[in-house]
């Protein structure tokens, strides 16, 4: 078994107290909804509706265009207004379906129908997950049905549900654990039915004792499910760190969790699987944290996918004053954008408004303090990799395991010289990946 932690990591300001004890508010959209065709890793979905079509809640409007791809589901009923390029959180323009909401929320046939997963075949379960458009909701957006179909199906020993939520400020997973824990456990049971010999582990950081208690109570009767309390430390929720902390098994960049007998899914993904399989409800909504020192009323919202972020900010009382920076996702791995007129996608988790941009700092020379390698959860020497990257010494970069960087940002956070270590390493890593693709 694991040691409940890993070597390295950091303890940034948590900031979870702003939102963690406030119940989630359900928010219905006012304006149009925007559904980018690429909200996941893999090939973008293809629109299967045309401008002027009337669509229903739960209707497939974008179809997966390959094995590693995902369906896009409408979260409202209304008319397709446009199919055009729209800005998404990565800063790219992506083909998107714009739907004018008729506020009637008419549902497709069979929406919400109860199903007994025990009577369903593995194939049917996987197809239900695929049809519902479920992807890794922790942020990566990898199609979940693909994850649930490893080659070594009979060698899976652990199904790990990731409730670590180690990113500062974010509490959307926590609120989900507090408000809808039965869905998470239900999802886990469905996944476990796919892997007979596997044991279920729900991993939660020790700064969320209430959630631990809740899930322990719910799973006390289940002999093959365990709630594993892990140490509060960033990046505890990183896939490689969490697998190690809970099972003691080690992953590197060349291995997937399934290679060491593990399947890892976020709590929100588990809940989505439950809804899709047991309730015939596709993925149409998610929990979003609105927080940061610039926000008037930080809290969590239960919103429809496709809602414009500006509507959620408004519902949170708007900004106290113009924030210097807006981050989508957590402060460690989230993306900053110059606007917040962008839609909520499947992998959105938060919008954070900061009055001061902590990252707007000037670099100074490295003083060789060694903090970056001390905190690196992959046990690399970040400053050396960043220097190699900056000098374009690609071969040496790869030789010194630069490709194993998980991009957690711990080195840049801790660096007293304020060097952009993660930024440089990830840039070089992407460069190497791109050149491999082109070769």
């Amino acid at each position, binding site marked *: 078994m694991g040691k409940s932690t890993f070597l390295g990591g950091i303890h940034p300001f948590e900031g979870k107290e702003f939102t963690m004890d406030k119940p989630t508010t359900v928010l219905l959209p006012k304006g149009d909804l925007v559904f980018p065709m690429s909200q996941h890793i893999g090939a973008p979905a293809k629109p299967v509706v045309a401008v002027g079509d009337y669509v229903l809640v739960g209707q497939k409007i974008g179809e997966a265009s390959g094995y590693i791809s995902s369906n896009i589901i409408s979260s409202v009923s209304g008319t397709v207004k446009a199919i055009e390029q729209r800005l998404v959180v990565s800063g790219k323009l992506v083909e998107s379906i714009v739907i004018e909401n008729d506020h009637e929320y008419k549902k497709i046939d069979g929406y919400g129908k109860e199903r007994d997963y025990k009577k369903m075949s593995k194939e049917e379960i996987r197809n239900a997950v695929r049809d519902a458009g479920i992807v890794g909701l922790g942020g990566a957006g990898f199609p979940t049905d693909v994850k649930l179909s490893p080659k070594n199906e009979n060698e899976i020993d652990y199904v790990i549900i990731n409730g670590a939520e180690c990113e500062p400020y974010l509490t959307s997973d926590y609120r989900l654990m507090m408000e809808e824990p039965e869905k998470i456990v239900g999802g886990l049971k469905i996944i476990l039915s796919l892997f007979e010999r596997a044991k279920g582990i729900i991993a939660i950081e020790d700064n969320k004792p209430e959630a631990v208690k809740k899930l322990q109570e719910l799973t006390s009767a289940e002999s093959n499910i365990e709630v594993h309390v892990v140490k509060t430390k960033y990046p505890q929720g990183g896939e490689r760190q969490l697998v*190690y902390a809970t099972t003691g098994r080690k992953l590197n960049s060349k291995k997937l969790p399934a290679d060491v007998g593990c399947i890892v899914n976020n709590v929100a993904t588990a809940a989505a699987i439950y809804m899709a399989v047991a309730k015939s409800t596709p993925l149409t909504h998610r929990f979003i944290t609105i927080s940061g020192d610039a926000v008037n009323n930080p809290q969590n919202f239960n919103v429809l996918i496709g809602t414009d972020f500006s509507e959620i900010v408004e519902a949170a009382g708007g900004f106290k004053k113009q924030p210097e920076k807006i981050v989508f996702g957590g402060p460690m*791995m989230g993306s900053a954008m110059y606007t917040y007129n962008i839609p909520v996608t499947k992998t959105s988790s938060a919008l954070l408004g900061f009055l001061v941009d902590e990252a707007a700092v*000037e670099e100074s020379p490295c003083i060789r303090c060694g903090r970056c390698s001390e905190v690196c959860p992959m*046990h690399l020497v970040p400053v050396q990799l960043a220097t190699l990257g900056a000098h374009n010494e690609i071969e040496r970069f790869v030789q010194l395991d630069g490709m194993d960087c998980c991009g957690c940002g711990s080195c840049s956070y801790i660096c007293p010289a304020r060097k952009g270590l993660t*930024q440089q390493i990830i840039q070089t890593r992407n460069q190497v990946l791109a050149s491999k693709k082109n070769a």
Partner: protein
Amino acid sequence: MNDMFHVSASPHARSPITTRTIMQDVCIALIPASLFGIYNFGLRALLVILTTILACTVTEYVYCRLMKMKVNPGDYSDVVTGLLLALNLPASIPLWMAVLGGVFAILIVKMLYGGLGQNFMNPALAARVFLLISFPAQMSNFVVEKIASPTVLDYFNSGAVAIDGVTGATPLAAVKTGETVNLFQMFVGNHGGTIGETSALALLIGAGYLLYRRVISLRIPLTYIVTLVVFAIIFGGHGFDMNYLLGQVLGGGLILGAFYMATDYVTSPTSSIGQIVYGIFLGLLTGLFRIIGSGVEGVSYAIVIGNLVVPMIDKVTRPVAFGKERAKVEK
């Protein structure tokens, strides 16, 4: 409301600890030792401290201006060098020698090698060794004579002005010849030596602060001191004589060197294992110089020579990437 916000790659959070706060912490940690030095050796010690700090900061400023580099943005690293250099000098040193030491530390050892973070030797210690070789007499003159009514000029002359009761010979010399020393006096620091090295108590208070602030870890100082003690037990010829062993630990520049100089980030290994190897290496070298060799002191030389092997230590103690095998790294 203007909708344009800052955009940058993640992470967007930064730790409150910067190079500047680290250097400030080192300065704060050296305050007790500096104050005790001034108490012990008089205002003359303060004069030496101010001289070296000024020499270091001015040298760095002038160099940056002349080379059209961005002038050091106040990271205090030059102040730390100046302060450490002063604490490694006798209070009686002629001030022009102190200035020379400061210029040597910053210009030759630090800036010519590329400035902050690029020097391969600890600037303050390299300057001390430079002065030791150039002016052995003045550098080991711990005799401080009291002048009845000193004039301003007297302060600037060698031969110093100081309080009574400070004897010339350092206790470490007595330890070396096997004499029994007053350990309590050595711990408090009321004896001869360089300005900052005499009071183990004051140095340990500062070291405690640095440990508390996590600026340094115990890895280097502890392995260094323990190795020296083991060396002294085996080769010292006094066995487990506590007076001898503690005399070795408290005497000379060991505490100052182990906690403040050997832990200098720039010139010490970065990995935990590397730091332990380095500490052992320093302990062995110091033992060699102090116990086998004919000299009394050996810390400065040990650290300066230890600095030279740091790149090699770093190379062989490189951490293995998580989930990978050591063999792959050594390829």
